[in-house]
């Protein structure tokens, strides 16, 4: 039986997809994970009181809906730092009042409920979700910022800001990522690896056919 290259490609891709889906389905327990990520300040500092920490959790319910929560912690001892032009009143307490997470929030199922928390919470479409908060003073936190999604987590960027240095804070390039929904338009590295693994035999087959062609 001769299999056309196009149909064999679809076959392998489907096989890879089915294997990946079955692998996920085989996990009997519902996802319940939590942790902490650091957002580095504008000067790249990712330790000590100048860096923000985000406590996060992702909890899956029986309907396979994932609840994402974030709590932005402003460490005690966070103070204003001087920049190159103005060094007034360094040492005054530093606050934080915005937080965002980046993923394609406009993708189908990416956000099925929320966002909630803060003074204002809104979707920025393909950019992600944004929260505007009451000033979070050093030694306090933002309270729970959350939303629900049909999509399981992958890792994405987050950032926070105030008006004065060392604001703003961010995952990129010196901080850590936080969990965000794995949307169709933003494949994670695992999906990409699986896809590439599936494509490798096809590529080899195509090259072999080309080499043996008279």
């Amino acid at each position, binding site marked *: 039986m001769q299999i056309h290259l196009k149909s064999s490609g679809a076959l392998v891709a489907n096989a890879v997809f089915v294997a990946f889906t079955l692998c996920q389905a085989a996990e009997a327990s519902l996802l319940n994970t939590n942790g902490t990520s650091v957002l580095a300040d504008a000067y790249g500092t990712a330790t000590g009181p100048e860096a923000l920490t985000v406590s996060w959790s992702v909890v899956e319910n029986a309907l396979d809906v994932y609840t994402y929560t974030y709590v932005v912690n402003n460490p005690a001892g966070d103070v204003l730092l001087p920049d190159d032009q103005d060094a007034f009143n360094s040492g005054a307490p530093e606050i934080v009042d915005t937080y965002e997470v980046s993923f394609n929030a406009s993708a189908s199922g990416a956000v099925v409920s929320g966002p909630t928390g803060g003074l204002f919470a809104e979707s920025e479409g393909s950019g*992600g979700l*944004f929260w505007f908060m009451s000033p979070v003073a050093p030694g306090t936190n933002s309270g729970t910022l959350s939303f629900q999604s049909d999509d399981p987590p992958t890792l994405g960027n987050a950032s926070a800001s105030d008006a004065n240095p060392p604001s703003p804070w961010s995952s*990129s390039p010196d901080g850590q990522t936080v969990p965000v929904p794995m949307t169709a338009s933003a494949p994670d590295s695992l999906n990409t690896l699986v896809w590439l693994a599936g494509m490798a035999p096809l590529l080899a087959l195509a090259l072999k056919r080309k080499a043996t062609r008279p």
Partner: protein
Amino acid sequence: MKMQPTTLIVSITGAILLSGLFSPSAQAQTVISNGTATLASVDNVTADEVSVAYTVTDNSGLYTYDYIVQAPNSASVSSFNVGFDGESYTVVPGSVNGGTFGQEVTGIGVDWLVSIPAGGHSGTLSFESYEAPTVGNGNANGNPSPPAPWASTYPGGEHLPVPIPEPGTTSLLAMALLALPLRFRGHKIELNRKRN
């Protein structure tokens, strides 16, 4: 009552200082600062920068600070802040305008919640103050990151006019106030010497 010349000079100086503080002189409305500043993006890409057009108008000692924020084509902007570096300042109560929501945070600055799509710009974001402009920091945040957030502090970023009291003016006022007791003390010594 007979007043000594030195006492008179000190009184007049004090009156001038106080009049400068509490009674703004009559002036016409004048644009005293007008320009554009760049808030650099966290990824340090020029095309990802946020641009802020600003104007400061002096209306007889009452300064109006106006900002218009331009988002890059690569991201939406959801907040804009100007910072006062923790210094005491005077934002006229109720004068923060523009955006979906605006708030002043005592000693910190003024924050606006805005809704600027990629490539778009805000309306005028403004407040009033009795402090003349000096330079300060601006920050913005939005989605996605990178290129958000944006800041004066990042390499290539620029400062904005904000009402932070000039250290020179503050120091001068402090020195003048400190000099008053010394001046009175010197006057007292002179009187005692004359009596003796």
